[in-house]
């Protein structure tokens, strides 16, 4: 049996790598990928907690898995909206570099 902590630590590492990517990269598409990585890390947490933690009530039996499913769905919608915004920016100024998007001061 793999201890719960192993999963949680892998998730923490992925989450922090994703956060680093989202904060440090300049390409808007790459920032969005970092965000997707963070959401994936959360999903490991959710599914691992589902597997290892006793549900507080019978209605919460599969709560972790179902939450993870909603996170996947919303991640898809978020990616679509983010990429549409990036395309709109690219059409008007030929760049996806967030440092060049500076009509207003950051």
């Amino acid at each position, binding site marked *: 049996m793999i201890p719960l902590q192993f999963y949680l630590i892998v998730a923490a590492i992925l989450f922090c790598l994703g956060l680093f990517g989202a904060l440090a990269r300049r390409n808007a598409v790459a920032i969005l990928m970092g965000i997707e990585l*963070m959401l994936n890390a959360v999903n490991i947490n959710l599914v691992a907690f589902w597997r290892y933690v006793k549900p507080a009530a019978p209605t919460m039996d599969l709560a972790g898995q179902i939450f993870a499913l909603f996170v996947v769905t919303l991640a898809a919608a978020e990616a679509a909206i983010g990429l549409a915004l990036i395309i709109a920016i690219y059409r008007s100024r030929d760049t996806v570099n967030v440092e060049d998007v500076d009509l207003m001061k950051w």
Partner: protein
Amino acid sequence: MLISPELILAIFGMLVLVVDLIGRARTREWLPWVTVLGFVLAFAATLYIWGSNASIFAGMYSVDMFSLFFKLLATIAGTMIVLVSIDYLRGRTTRQGEFFSIFTFSILAMTMMASSASLLMIYLSIEFLSYTSYLLTGFLREDKKSNEAALKYFLYGAITSAVMLYGLSLLYGVSGSLNLTDIATAFANTVDPSVRTVALVAPALVLAGLGFKISLVPFHQWAPDAYEGAPTPVTAFLSVGPKAVGFAILLRVALTTLPIYQASWIPLLAVISIITMTLGNLVALRQTNIKRLLAYSSIAQAGYMLIGLVGVNLTGNSPFSGLNGVLIYLFAYLFTNLGAFICVIAIENATGAVNIADYAGLVRRAPFVAALFIIFFLSLAGIPPTAGFIGKFFVFGAALREGFLTLAAIGVINSIISVFYYFAVIRAAFFLDAKDPSPIRITPLVTAMLTVTAAMVLLIAVYPQPLFNLAAWSMGMFGVVK
């Protein structure tokens, strides 16, 4: 029956899309009015289920007085913003149907945030409101500033919501449940020190997502750019809508799930409150664009509201429970800030100007708007006889009651600082000469909305008793904290 406001909003959101799709140009003129009808019906439905206190959908959705208060707030804000955006959108976009539909759904998301009592519903409704807000911010896609504002708003929002989600997963992990009340029980029953550590870290992560919605420092950086670039009616919406329901969730989580850790989150919130109001006010002093100025002002206002939560104490019968202060403040702020933004919209509709320098000589060009600016700014600064004073009175009073003297003092000092930048605008409007002295024509609809908001700001100040009752009813469902 209990979710009838939500059903009405969902149906009208889709109805607007359908009318837009099959209608001709003439019928499209009616789209904003269809939207308004939806909001009015949802408002009426909220009043119809007034007084209910039910937990539905396996405890995920809580239809209580607290949530109904915010549903009223959401539908009022929605109605006023649709009415002022009619003239604004004309000529700026041809896609009014999509705009009003997405806007209706964003009000739907607000009503759902107010009722969310489960981690899953909190996440879903926050994301729902965020997505609609990003889309509305970037709606004028031919406008470079609108694009840019939406992208920045989106990137900040997506990162903070991922951080919040991580915190939510930890809350699920330590309790084995998604329902806020179950989590509270799990916290109360555990003696395990490691669970207690997680219980301190997880809410801090959740605060990132909520702080983003409320625009608390250090999660506020998106606000000035998003406010400046977004279509101005959307800016008005962002400054009141997400902030109000962000507080709804913050209050619900803090008071139902985390009361036993009150000693540890109160100092954290006190520090955030001080930094938020001080930074917001100091940076606002340097602004030249009225939308950016109001952005920093609204950051500072979030800091004042947070004082109410720091000073929360629901024991006894004191009129200063902190919680009622936040609710009263939010209600007063709704009309005040919307009013200030409608002034901005009135000027922008006629001249396109959004810089404070362009307001020179406004008293001659549009005396009505200039006069109302004074009322709204007095209210934002918290000077009687205005609604803002009542709000500040109750949040500062709660802080004093709980012995947070320094916090209250810093709040008062900040209110004084804020007078300087509000009156910089007034000074330009009243004492400087206009470059172009031609009168500004204000459309009747905007004039009507200005009258309504100004009347409410003054009415709350002279006859506040109904609002006190409303706040007292709304907080009845929270148990005794402290």
